[in-house]
């Protein structure tokens, strides 16, 4: 079996996790910039983190033969301080030409505040200016529905945004249809306690079709499972889905979206 982990925060994971993922068939891992669990206090703190995402982490993954890609941004949880946010957004272009950077992400909203909306808009304008793919984080729990609506309205207000080049991540049953209906890609996150479980993820595929959807573990420093994506293949097989279906959802779909960035390459995997 082959699969792509399109959303994993590997800076928080051990090398044992890299070994387990590769053993399970992982062909590439993509790492969006996110919150460290505490607020960074300066632009230099972000610069160091972006270096970690573009230099150190790809080298660590390469020891296991795993291609590592990243996304750069200031995450919405740190967007309340707009002075710092503006300064961080100003250094992002330094990193967009790095060979493993696929786009701007994971931007989005956290508690749906005006300042978060402002920082989100700055990132969208940056992505438009630099023709970047966009990966969007939608808020947690009771804030997700409202945040998803706001994000979709903000994105659709930009004529230059092609929804086929934007993935809205962490969708659940109450948000997936509005994302797909407006032409965007949808990411289903498999978490042990929140977001989606493997059975619910397969239910959503049955209800909405399997096009323009990827699955991810979003493994980080919290309660999460770096093997959640291949474990969902097991749920598909228990329901009788074919190997081709599993390959389409776990490998070909994320490859289709990510390949819109020419830097995304999978040596050893043919185009079928």
């Amino acid at each position, binding site marked *: 079996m082959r699969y792509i982990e399109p959303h994993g925060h590997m800076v928080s994971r051990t090398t044992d996790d890299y070994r387990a993922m590769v053993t399970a068939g992982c062909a590439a891992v993509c790492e969006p910039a996110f919150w460290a669990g505490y607020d960074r206090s300066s632009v230099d703190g972000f610069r160091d983190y972006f270096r970690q995402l573009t230099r150190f982490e790809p080298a660590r993954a390469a020891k296991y033969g795993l291609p590592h890609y990243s996304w750069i941004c200031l995450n919405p949880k740190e967007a*309340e301080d707009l002075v710092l946010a503006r300064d961080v957004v100003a250094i992002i272009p330094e990193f967009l030409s790095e060979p493993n950077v696929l786009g701007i992400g994971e931007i989005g909203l*956290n*508690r*749906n*505040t*005006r300042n*978060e*909306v402002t920082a989100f808009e700055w990132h969208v304008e940056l992505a438009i200016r630099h023709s970047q793919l966009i990966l969007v984080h939608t*808020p*947690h*729990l*009771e*804030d*997700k*529905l*409202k945040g998803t*609506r*706001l994000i979709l309205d903000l994105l659709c207000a930009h004529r230059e945004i092609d929804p086929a080049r934007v993935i809205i991540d962490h969708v*659940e*049953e*109450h948000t997936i*249809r509005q994302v*797909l*209906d407006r032409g965007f890609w949808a990411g289903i996150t498999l978490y042990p306690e929140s977001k989606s479980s493997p*059975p*619910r993820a397969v*239910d959503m595929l*049955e*209800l*909405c*079709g*399997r096009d323009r959807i990827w699955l991810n573990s979003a493994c980080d420093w919290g309660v999460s499972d770096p093997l959640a994506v291949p474990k969902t293949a097991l749920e598909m097989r*228990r*329901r*009788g*889905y*074919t190997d*081709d*279906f599993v390959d389409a959802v776990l490998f070909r779909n994320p490859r289709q979206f990510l390949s819109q960035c020419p830097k995304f390459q999978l040596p050893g995997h043919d185009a079928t």
Partner: protein
Amino acid sequence: MVSKTPPTSKARRLRQRAPMPPTAIVDQGFVAARAMLLDVAAFLDRVERYGAKSDFRCEAMRSAAKFLSDGKPERARRILERLSDPTRAPLAVAPRGAACGAWKKGRK
């Protein structure tokens, strides 16, 4: 909510999935779902014993749980909607703390 997403056609679904008897899906999930249902019941009993019955999160859970047995489809979607913030305007300031999983009007 009316969806514009075309459902995957039945013919395509059949090509993607080997046929299985309807009871197989029950066999696969029943015991696990039974355990989760008992956990919800025991949780609601527990919060009552501890005097937290009227916590807005517990009230929201009891209200959302009614969808489980109303005989209508898309229970998961409707429960999520019931627990969500229905307002539309961005907030002037972030509420204190992290999201908690249920929404209450005017909660800061």
